[in-house]
């Protein structure tokens, strides 16, 4: 994409450190949170797009400059959490200001489970090889935030984030438990059961005996 590649090129020429780009993204997200806190959703959405450009280019600039590092990956993940939490805090402030304690709770719970989504995967992958299960990951979360902001449907977005983040955390806990206990998959058991039922429903003369 032309504008993005031009920005990446400029950052490479200016030799801007990718970690600086990452932290710049966080500061811009704090501005987006401020806009959300003021109820200026469209502005919040626009600023979120700007912040996510930084989030998108930091890894690419690191690769171009051959400055990739393990610390860079760690820094990126930690800064992502700050960005996510800032957006939720902006909304919590807004709903508190409006005296809507119900949505303060919904948003706070959505924030808690969004953080737990990342934590469960990070912690799981320290004891098992991979824990990439569950629908509601960061890209989905950010896109949903933007949809909520641009179309002024943030309450519905908060409900979706809350429910699907709870499901994602549960998925990750279950997946880790299953991997550690070498337990057979539920879907395999259900498929096996279905196959048994199909076989039982087949007329006896149609079956082949080997």
């Amino acid at each position, binding site marked *: 994409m032309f504008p993005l590649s031009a920005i990446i090129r400029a950052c490479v020429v200016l030799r801007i450190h990718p970690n600086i780009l990452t932290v710049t993204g966080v500061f811009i997200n704090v501005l987006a949170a401020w806009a959300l806190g003021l109820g200026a*959703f469209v502005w919040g959405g626009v600023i979120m797009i700007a912040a996510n450009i930084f989030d998108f280019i930091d890894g690419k600039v690191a690769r171009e400059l051959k400055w990739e590092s393990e610390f860079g990956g760690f820094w990126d993940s930690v800064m992502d959490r700050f960005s996510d939490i800032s957006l939720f805090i902006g909304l919590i402030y807004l709903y508190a200001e409006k005296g*809507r304690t119900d*949505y303060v709770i919904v948003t706070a719970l959505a924030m808690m489970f969004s953080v737990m989504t990342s934590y469960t995967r990070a912690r799981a992958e320290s004891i098992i090889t991979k824990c990439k299960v569950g629908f509601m990951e960061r890209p989905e979360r950010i896109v949903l935030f933007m949809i909520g902001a641009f179309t002024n449907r943030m309450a*519905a977005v908060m409900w*979706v984030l809350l429910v699907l983040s709870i499901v994602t955390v549960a998925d990750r806990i279950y997946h880790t438990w299953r991997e550690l206990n070498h337990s057979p998959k*539920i879907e395999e058991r*259900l498929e096996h059961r279905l196959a048994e*039922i199909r076989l039982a*429903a087949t007329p006896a003369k149609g079956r082949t005996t080997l």
Partner: protein
Amino acid sequence: MKRVLTLPALVLWRAFFWTYERGTWQYDLWVIAILAFVWLTPPAWLSDPMATGPGLVGWLRTLVQ
């Protein structure tokens, strides 16, 4: 009867115990369901403190009436 119960259980399990990649048809189906909920649910049903207007469903209802 058992078959009737097992197939929906499998579909529900696969929908909620999510292991699909982005870009699969299952993913697209979830995205459509989420967008439908966000855009079609009338804000009044959720007591949305910020949304204005009746939403797409409310607008269609007034159009029909």
